[in-house]
């Protein structure tokens, strides 16, 4: 029988410490099942590698270290599977609506959009850090495409309606802060 090169805790620590050697080792462990998951569910091989990277990010950005009850690879695969299911759900729905709008709002001037976005990104993050922790957690889950039911369960809210109310408040608060920022108007892209 082969020996385990790293135990579960070492693998988890390797992610938190951004240890390239361990991260590459984990990619080797999960590549085949994640690739199969994606290829068998409307995805391409590129999607599989992106999904694995999102899996690492999901672990890395967790505020509390998970207590593993299964092997690290099982845990990692479960994360990837959830992300992929959310991704498929959103891809199915977004369809042409956004494409039409994004095509309609064409940037007509020769502006360095990348630089502008970087400044807007900093602006969004500045205000995001200033909203409450609960609001941050809630909007993070929304941004990752979690369903309303999953968010309610994940944050242990008492009801779906309560979650929606909180979501409305949190989002409004953040939008107001951004829009009221004097920098915002100058950074709006073609808007």
């Amino acid at each position, binding site marked *: 029988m082969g020996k385990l090169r790293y135990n579960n805790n070492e693998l988890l620590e390797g992610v938190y410490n951004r240890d390239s050697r361990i991260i590459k080792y984990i*990619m080797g462990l999960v590549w085949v*099942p994640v690739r*199969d998951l994606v290829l068998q569910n409307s995805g391409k091989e590129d999607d599989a*590698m992106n999904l694995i*990277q999102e899996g690492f*990010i999901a672990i*890395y950005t967790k505020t509390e270290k998970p207590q593993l009850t299964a092997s690290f690879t099982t845990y990692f*695969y479960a994360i990837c599977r959830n992300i992929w299911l959310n991704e498929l759900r959103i891809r199915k729905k977004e369809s042409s609506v956004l494409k039409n709008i994004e095509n309609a709002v064409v940037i007509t001037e020769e502006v360095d959009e990348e630089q502008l976005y970087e400044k807007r990104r900093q602006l969004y993050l500045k205000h995001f850090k200033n909203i409450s922790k609960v609001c941050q957690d809630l909007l993070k889950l929304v941004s990752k495409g979690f369903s*309303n039911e999953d968010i309610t369960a994940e944050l242990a809210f008492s009801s779906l309606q309560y979650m*929606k109310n909180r979501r409305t408040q949190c989002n409004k608060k953040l939008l107001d802060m951004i829009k009221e920022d004097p920098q915002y108007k100058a950074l709006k892209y073609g808007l």
Partner: protein
Amino acid sequence: MDYNDRFLDFLSGELSDEDQNKLSEELNNNKELQEDLLLQKEILHTIKMGDDDTMDFRSQLKDIGNDFLEDKKSTFRIRPMYWIAVASVITIFSISTFLGLLSNDRFMGDQMFMEYYEPYGININVRGHNDFTEIDKAIELYQSGNTKSALDEFQRLKIDNSEMSGFFSALCQIELGNIIEAERELELISKDAVFYSEHIDWYLSLCYLKQEKLPEAKALFQHIAEGNNEYADKAIRILKKLK
């Protein structure tokens, strides 16, 4: 519900088709609304991508991922001899089944096994060259028809990845004609299966079928038929024939 709520529902895939169409119509004629949606989308994207530290980690992951894929970039395709072997087996199975049908009105488990069994992953490319992972090497052995060596490898690798190695070990056992061992292996991993649960159920049900364990086979085919996966249609067809 205000527009921002509807945007959030839309961007989370929670809006019904009807509401989505309505929103789409409203957006078409309202530039301000379009801008608000793009702003909402961009903010959520920024939150998703994370802060500078997370962005830096993304960049690192991209490099590691490229490196990982570079190591595997020479695409390996299944050897021609294996294709011939697979084609021959399927042809023989099909002819046998056909002849079996002529001599018997009723499908029996063994015949149905022959009709429905296909080696797993014959259409999957295993990629890699110099730095194959050990699992890739074992899968290559399995795909090239070197089943006994593949089985030894999967058994050795079980400690690192019990489900995948167990699954492929079972596939090797089927290829070697060791159906009881395959069944035992699949039953062992099926309870906690995450990666390959649908495939494990399918091959386990075929093992039951092969051994004429019809109650167990029917129960599992029923379970598969109720699922939404690539085996559901086949399971439904088998269940009809088993009636």
